[in-house]
């Protein structure tokens, strides 16, 4: 049991850190994918990415042309863009600062230092000269944050909300990544291009793990199956949902499944026992979309159940623990 406001702050700290990391991944794979496939239409690739991040309208409101530099700057450093990496990390830091006394000093130091270092850099020049280095910096520092939190935080409810936020965000972002890539592949007829799928796998650090699982056979459908349904790989959608579910179960009061637990359990079971051929035949993009909506519904239900429940005294008095 913990203060509802703190639970919410930790949940969002987890989400924003994951969002920053995954945005860096998506940018990395899109940017470098375009360099490797000069025939692709860059503007439509960037537009798809913006759509997947639900940021297409915010971008067009700026009235800028859809170019590499305009979109990457928008997604990395634009302070007006609520989804930019800089803003995500600033909000992660705000949330962490609100729960400063609940997280370890090392964890706070990592989050704070990342924010300060990002502010000290000339991001525009970094994007021009060495975007790879910049994305790598963001990814590795977000991973450091996960590592430090895993090694310094007790496995109490605070830790669970932090992890739950990260895992739900990850499930959603991996769905988005797959949508971006498969939508593009269906149009541009690159489905058999091995390099393309290698890039996709690399963008989620899955290349080596995939090779071990599939003995170097790179097939689009196998890639899809791996990133959706692997039980072992920590960035697959199923893995993230199972991890979220086990935290949700521990967060429950032990009086039967909570509403978020029910929603997530059904979503996870639907995915887990689905045949990959079936998914493809019934329409992959629609399946990914409904999966993504399902994850969002779970996140909303977590908010309602845990963060907004304790309002009326007569309904919610519980025994002191």
């Amino acid at each position, binding site marked *: 049991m913990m203060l509802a406001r703190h639970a919410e702050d930790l949940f969002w700290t987890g989400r924003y850190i994951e969002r920053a990391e995954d945005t860096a991944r998506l940018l990395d794979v899109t940017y470098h994918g375009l360099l490797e496939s000069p025939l692709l239409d860059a503007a439509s690739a960037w537009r798809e990415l913006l759509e997947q991040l639900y940021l297409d309208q915010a971008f067009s409101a700026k009235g800028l042309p859809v170019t590499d530099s305009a979109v990457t700057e928008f997604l990395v450093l634009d302070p007006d863009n609520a989804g930019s990496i800089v803003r995500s990390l600033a909000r992660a830091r705000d949330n962490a600062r*609100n729960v400063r006394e609940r997280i370890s000093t090392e964890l706070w130091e990592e989050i704070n*230092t990342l924010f300060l270092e990002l502010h000290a850099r000339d991001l525009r020049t970094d994007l021009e000269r060495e975007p790879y280095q910049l994305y790598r910096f963001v990814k590795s520092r977000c991973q450091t944050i996960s590592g430090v939190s895993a090694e310094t935080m007790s496995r109490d409810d605070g830790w669970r909300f932090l992890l739950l936020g990260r895992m739900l965000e990850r499930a959603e972002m991996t769905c988005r990544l797959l949508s971006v890539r498969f939508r593009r592949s269906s149009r541009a007829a690159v489905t058999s291009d091995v390099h393309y799928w290698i890039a996709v796998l690399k963008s989620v650090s899955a290349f080596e793990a995939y090779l071990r699982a599939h003995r170097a056979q790179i097939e689009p459908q196998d890639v899809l199956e791996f990133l959706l349904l692997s039980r072992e790989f920590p960035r697959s959608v199923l893995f993230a949902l199972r991890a979220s579910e086990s935290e949700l179960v521990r967060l429950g009061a032990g009086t039967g499944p909570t509403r978020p637990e029910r929603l997530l359990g059904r979503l996870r079971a639907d995915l887990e026992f689905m045949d990959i051929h079936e998914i493809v035949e019934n329409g992959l993009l629609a399946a990914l979309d409904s999966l993504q909506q399902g994850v969002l519904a779970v996140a909303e239900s977590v908010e309602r159940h845990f963060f907004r429940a304790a309002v009326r005294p007569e309904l*919610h008095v*519980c025994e002191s623990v």
Partner: protein
Amino acid sequence: MTTDLFTEYERGDFFDEVFDARGGVRSHYRPLLERLRALAPGELRHRAGLRDTILRNLGITFAVYGEAQGIERTWPLDLIPRIIPADEWHQVERGLVQRVRALNCFLEDLYLGERAALREGVIPAWLVQSSGGFCREAFGIPVPKGARCLVAGIDVVRDAHGTYRVLEDNLRTPSGVSYVLENRATLTRVLPLAFAHRVRPVNHYGASLLSALRNLAPPSASDPPRIVVLTPGIHNSAYFEHAFLARQMGIELVEGRDLVVDDHVVFMRTTRGLSRVDVIYRRVGDEFLDPAVFRSDSVLGVPGLLSAARAGNVSLANAIGNGVADDKAVYAYVPGLVRFYLGEEPILPNVDTYLLWDRDQRAAALSRLHELVVKPVDASGGYGIVIGPKATEEELAGVRKAIEAKPRSYIAQEVVALSRHPTLIDDAPRGTGRIEGRHIDLRPFVLTGEKIEVIPGGLTRVALRKDSLVVNSSQGGGSKDTWVLAAGENGASR
């Protein structure tokens, strides 16, 4: 002796903490100075850079925070520690314990007792009742064991003779203790070689505070009682400290919106519903605590909190209404309160103070206003203070007029030539950093638990501007790690 950091040091016409009147190093500073003198040129400046990095990365800051610029001012910690020998500290500590005992008695008697000090004329009743900190709503609210000043910050200065004197009492929500702990932790990392002495530790403060708060639990509390820290929120300049203390004690840091009162019982909103709260270490001022009683526009407080306290279902620390005892006019009567309630002579003297509503004292003060300090009775943080010798004619005329209009609202005091301490002045963009004398004070922290306890040392504040006497961090002050030497440690090197 070769040229070193202290060669050009000007002792000045003040009490210097390190150098005696003939320029010799006081014995308890000798080992430290030997080690500092052995440093290579520029080494201290290098360490100052390291200090800034550590403080910034840990987010030890105090300025108002805003997402747009995001960079706060780091806490100004001077690298040269202040040292207090064991026997000297022993006297200060006894004086502080005595003073806080008397203040607790006075407040308990005022709000729940016979008001003996008022009836017997130790302090005028009208003076107490006209104080901005006097709070009628505090009547009848029980405070377990009379521990009203659970945390007191008593500001102490040393005058031209080196005598310790109390400058003011802070009995509402005194802040700064987190910096005492962080200063020590930082200095051990940045300048480990300076620790040539056995220094009494300070990092048990969280445990001591928690045990004092437990001692305050109401009879109806669960066992162990649920204790929380109540903060005004992240935008408060002391938020860092509120979070720090909650973490040190391992308890929840709550805001007003996290609490709810039902049937005179306080609950906090948790992920599993409402959960009862027994003791609140509140860092929210009286007037914002309960919008149902005080300021109805306060969004920082909890409606109904006072009713719960009155019913004895929750204890607040510090108690409501303490402000009356740290009114600067009431301050002048504290030595009298010590004699009255304890039957003892005060160990720590006050600074000589003129009470300006008294016609004779007012006339005496007005005739030599240019030699005195004038302070508003109800302000803190160094605001509104006029220092006679440094004031312009207009300022003096203005303050004279203000005194004549509202004599109750001001006091005048002799200017205390605060002691000075060598301080690293590293505002020069190049060079090795200079060491100059700067005026200092001391805020020790006194806890009322089962016994009254003083954390060794306290927060030494430094007026960083040359010749300034104002040490408040809101006015450009810095700080020093403050060492109380262990008993038997007379300064011999180890």
